[in-house]
Every structure is written in structure tokens, then in C-alpha cells.
């Protein structure tokens, strides 16, 4: 099975500044691997198994060695395309790149909280089925068995290929790469894809800060503050 692991396709949200008028200033926020990207790689590797292959795919102007330092030997990059506020435009750009990579069985991409809908939109553009919230997967007889949490249960679904999986991490990255792996990764070749930046279908006409729920502080000694907190929770019907 040939899998594409899509990584580092958005900017670091923690580096963005929200101005007082609500404008989001991305400033020096770089392209960054998302919290779910390590899970993307793990799932793609599980699917490929010993007989298959995984290639990485990234967009934007970021450093590309992230996936190569985590065991991939091949990566593609579309540096002309940056993340768009229009999630569908980002998905169209990724779909163009997937098309150029050639024959692919599965595309694994983060089902990212900060960018909801990209995984589903990518599947729609490719015309493939999609499963979101996936925690793990493996190939089985030309199909994909994917698992995800549903409430307290774990659901396993058997899916045909080609398809898109939206991955969700269940924990921290188990073993981040060391210095040597990072240095070797930067020496591995990255193939650049010529992907035309798709036109964004949404444009901001104004900004405002979201309404905020003010914090409530409880003064006094620790016992008094705890008692006030409990009283407030009871008052709000939460206890």
C-alpha cells in the first residue's frame, strides 16, 4: 500500500497574535507541525507495512525535514502554496499535489481542531471516501482497517482504497528524533511540486474580538476560596 503523509501544512497558531480589533497577525508564525502530525506519520507507516511505502507531503515555506527526520525517505513539497483562511482552498492545493505524486492508496492528514474540514474537503476534491477521527489503522487484504474512539468504545471500520484518513493523536509523540536523525534528514532530497496557489473563496470584511467570559476570582484563605468556589459551582447548577 502506498500512503501519503501530509505534514506541516499550517502555521503555528501559538505564534499568532490576536490584535485588539480581532485581527489575527500571523507575523513571524512559521509553518509548523501540528499536534496530530506525529499520529499522521505513525498511521501512514502502519498502513504501508513492510511491503508498502510512505511519502511525505508538505506545503508552504517551512523547513521540510520534519517527516524525513522521523523515518521517511521521500518527501514532496509545494513551497508556492501557503495555508489559506479558506480551508477548501488549502484542500484544493493539497489535492493538486497528491495528483502529481501519482498512484496513491491512502492520504493521511491531521483532523486538526484548528483547521476543521480540510481532511474532508481534500477527500471531496479527490473524489475519495474519508474517515475522520482516526487513531490507528492497518492494511488488510487491499482494504484499510481504521480505528477511532466513539464515546467510550473503539470503532473499527473496513474501508476501500483510495481514501483519505483524518488522524487524531491520542498522546504525545513517543520518541522525537535526535540530533543525528535531524541532520541526516536535511541531507535527504525533497522533490518540489509545481502547485498553483488556488484562489481563496473567502475574504475577511472585518474583524472583532470574540465575546469573553470573564474569569471569577475567589479571595480569602485557601479554605475560604475553596468554599466560595464550591458555592459558585452549586449556584450555577454544576454540582
Amino acid at each position: 500500500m502506498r500512503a501519503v503523509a501530509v505534514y506541516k501544512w499550517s502555521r503555528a497558531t501559538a505564534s499568532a497574535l490576536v490584535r485588539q480589533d480581532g485581527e489575527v497577525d500571523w507575523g513571524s508564525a512559521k509553518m509548523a507541525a501540528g499536534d496530530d502530525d506525529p499520529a499522521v506519520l505513525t498511521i501512514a507507516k502502519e498502513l504501508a507495512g513492510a511491503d508498502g511505502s510512505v511519502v511525505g507531503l508538505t506545503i508552504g515555506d517551512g523547513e521540510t525535514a520534519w517527516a524525513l527526520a522521523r523515518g521517511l525517505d521521500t518527501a514532496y513539497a509545494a513551497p508556492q502554496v501557503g495555508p489559506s483562511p479558506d480551508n477548501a482552498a488549502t484542500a484544493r492545493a493539497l489535492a493538486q499535489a497528491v495528483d502529481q505524486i501519482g498512484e496513491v492508496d491512502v492520504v493521511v492528514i491531521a483532523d486538526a481542531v484548528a483547521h476543521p474540514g480540510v481532511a474532508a474537503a481534500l477527500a471531496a476534491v479527490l473524489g475519495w471516501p474519508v474517515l475522520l477521527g482516526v487513531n490507528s489503522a492497518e492494511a488488510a487484504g487491499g482494504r484499510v482497517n481504521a480505528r477511532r474512539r466513539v464515546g467510550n468504545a473503539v470503532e473499527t471500520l473496513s474501508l476501500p482504497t483510495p481514501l483519505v484518513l483524518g488522524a487524531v493523536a491520542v498522546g504525545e509523540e513517543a520518541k522525537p528524533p535526535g540530533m543525528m536523525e535531524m541532520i541526516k534528514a536535511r541531507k535527504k532530497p525533497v522533490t518540489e511540486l509545481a502547485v498553483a496557489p488556488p484562489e481563496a473563496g473567502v475574504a475577511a470584511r472585518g474583524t472583532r474580538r470574540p465575546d469573553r467570559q470573564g474569569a471569577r476570582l475567589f479571595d480569602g484563605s485557601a479554605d475560604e476560596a475553596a468554599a466560595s468556589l464550591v458555592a459558585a459551582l452549586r449556584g450555577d447548577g454544576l454540582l
Partner: protein
Amino acid sequence: MSETPEVDFDVIVIGAGVAGCVSAHELAKAGRSVLLVERGPEPGAKNLSGGVFYCRVMEQVFPSFADAAPVERVITRNCLSFLNRSSFVNLDYADERLAEPVNAVSVLRARLDAWLAEQCEQAGVMLMAGIKVDRLLVEDGRVMGIGAGEDELRCHVVVAADGVNSFISRDAGFRAKDPPNHLAVGVKSVIGLDRGVLEDRFNLEGDQGAAYAVVGDCTKGVGGGGFMYTNRESVSIGVVLRLDDLARSGHSAAGLHDHFVDHRFIAPFLKGGELLEYGAHLVAEGGQAMVRDLVRPGLVVVGEAAGLALNTGLTVRGMDLAAGSALAAAEAVEAALAAGDCSAASLDRYRRNLAASFVGRDMATYRRAPAFLEGRRMFNDYGPLLADVFHGLYDLDLKPRRHLLKTAREALKAAPVGLTDLMADGWKALRAL
């Protein structure tokens, strides 16, 4: 000339703050292969919000630094404030000359450090973030590289720029644990304010900014002080508390921070603001006395890791000293590499460069400042005394007016400070500052 061992890089710099980035940038610009290792997931990620950067030195590294770098505001107004329970005396100095050329800027380190690291990469530095260097590789007393987990990398020179705690310096035997009177804890909040409101409250125009240095009731008499400076759309405010005095006082650092922020003369600056960040950070306060060895065979230490920080009571400096030390170190390391000799004697050029630079000279000039600032009268007595003098001048209570000197003498008589104390402290201040 000594042997030239096989290496992965000419230089490995530990820490992508101001000192680390400037060192790495200058050495890469000189054509050296440089690895810049940062512990945080991104450069700037580990830094607590920001500070006032006396940035003239950066023009030597990045021409038009103040225009090109992501700075918040150009500081053109400095206030030295004596804060008392019911009075507030300010020496307010605003000067357009401080904007041309730019003298100081407020910065948010998450943005500045990311920008600096980007300049390094453009100069050819290999940046590696998310790596915690846990040891130096030492052979026959010479530093040969770094180790992180199972991996080891070798180089001709390691530049330790890993901040005030510098475990690398301690491992190398440079620094024992610093005594508590050499260290302070800084507790800081960043309060978001509408830009127009902020500029009105601090009497600012455009990108101009203000910085306050505060002593007195902001720390309830604990050695240290308060600070407040303006960013583009926020105010950074907090206290710096000498550890030994804080421990003696029985106060908590967080409690004193809250006391300052809620103080009746400070709270109006922040009214309606939104808390954006809150955190604490260890600060070097020992001045010249904290500066230890700077060089070992194959190793130099720069910035706060070398103890380079200055609190004169008027200015709190660290980033400019970091940049200055990095320039001094980079020149010496480049000379050592060119000579093929990275011994302590060869790298000692860094110590001489530093001593001759503004960094070494300023550290020497202000060597008495820490001892002067340890005097309790600075924090407890002079603020109320000044307020009493001004009260005597402005409180027109229908009694006949007296000359300033007489008014001051009356205030002094009522204060716990004697004339001898005043003269002694004045003399100390003149010598220290």
C-alpha cells in the same frame, strides 16, 4: 597550533536567544559551519514575554534593526518612580532624541527570537529546535562537542548561550550555584489594552513607548523593584525581587506582584485590560560579581549564561549585553578557528574583547550598583521623604511659604533617614551609578 579534530560543525551554539543567535549569525557570516541548538520547540518559545532592549548594538549585526525586526514600541519616555502607599513621585523624562537614532525598544521575545533565528538560517546556520543538550563532550580537559540523549556531535568550539541557569556552564565547572543575593525572581504579567487607550494613558504617539522603573511600596520594601513598559497593544508589568530579601520578608513573589498591579496609582494604567500572559523567571542581579570565567578550551560562554546582566535602578539590561558579548565572542572564535587553535589561551581573546567593549566597561562602571541597591533605605524611606518634600511645596495650607531648602530640611527631620544617611547614600549613588 594544535591538532584539528574531525568535526560535524565548526561551531555549535547552545541556545537561540539574543546571545546565541548573534554569535551563530556572525560566525556563519564569516563562512563557518554553525549548528544552533534550541531546547524549546521554537526559538523564543521558552522566553517569558519580553523586555526593553537597548538595541543600538544590534545595528552592528543587522543594519536598520529597529525597522526590520518585529519590535513593539520605541521607548522615548522613561520614568523613575517612587511609589508609596498614598503618594507617587515620578521623575518623568521624555525626549524625541531617543527615537533618532532608536535607543531602546520594547520587544516580545517569542517574535524577536523567531526573527533572529530566521536571520541565522538565511546566513547559513543550521537551526535545530526541540533538542535539550544534556552534556558537553570533554576529552583531556577540552570541550569537543555536545551530547543530547544517545547522540553526540563534535565541533571545534561550543558557544554556551543557554541563559541565566546555564547548566552547561555549571557542568563545565564555570559557575557554582549562585548565592541568593545574586539572583532575583521576576514575576510578570502582560495586560492587553486597546491601542488608543494605551497611548492616551501613557501619553504616547504613534509607535513611541514608555518604560517605568519603580521602587518602594511596589515590593513592600523587599529589595528589588517594579517595572512597567508599553508594547504595541499591551503593557508588561511586574516586580523583580531579590531572593534573599524575599525569603526574609515572608512575602510571596506572586502576592507582591498582585499588590503592585492593584496599587491605587498603578491600577488606573491597566483598568479594563485583559491578562494575556503571566509567568516568573530567574534574573541575574549580581552585576560584575556574577561574571565568572568565560572561556575553557573549546568553549566560550555568552549572555546571561556568563552572568552578564545589569540592574542600575534606572535601567535593567540584559539583551544588549548579550548581543555585545556575542559579538566579542564571535570575533574571538573566528580568530581561533582561523589560527587552528581553540585552546583557552587562544579563546581568551574573547575575554579581552569583552573587557574592551561597552559590555565590559559598563559592567565595571556599575560594579557597585548591586551593593547600592541592596540598601534598605532605597526601598523604604526615600520615596516617602520625597513625597513629604513635595507635599510641603504643593500643600498651600494658608501658612506662610518657606523656601525649598527649609521645607526639605523639615521633611528630613521627620523622616527615619538622617542627614548623614542621606549624604552617605548620595555619595554611594554617585559612585555606583
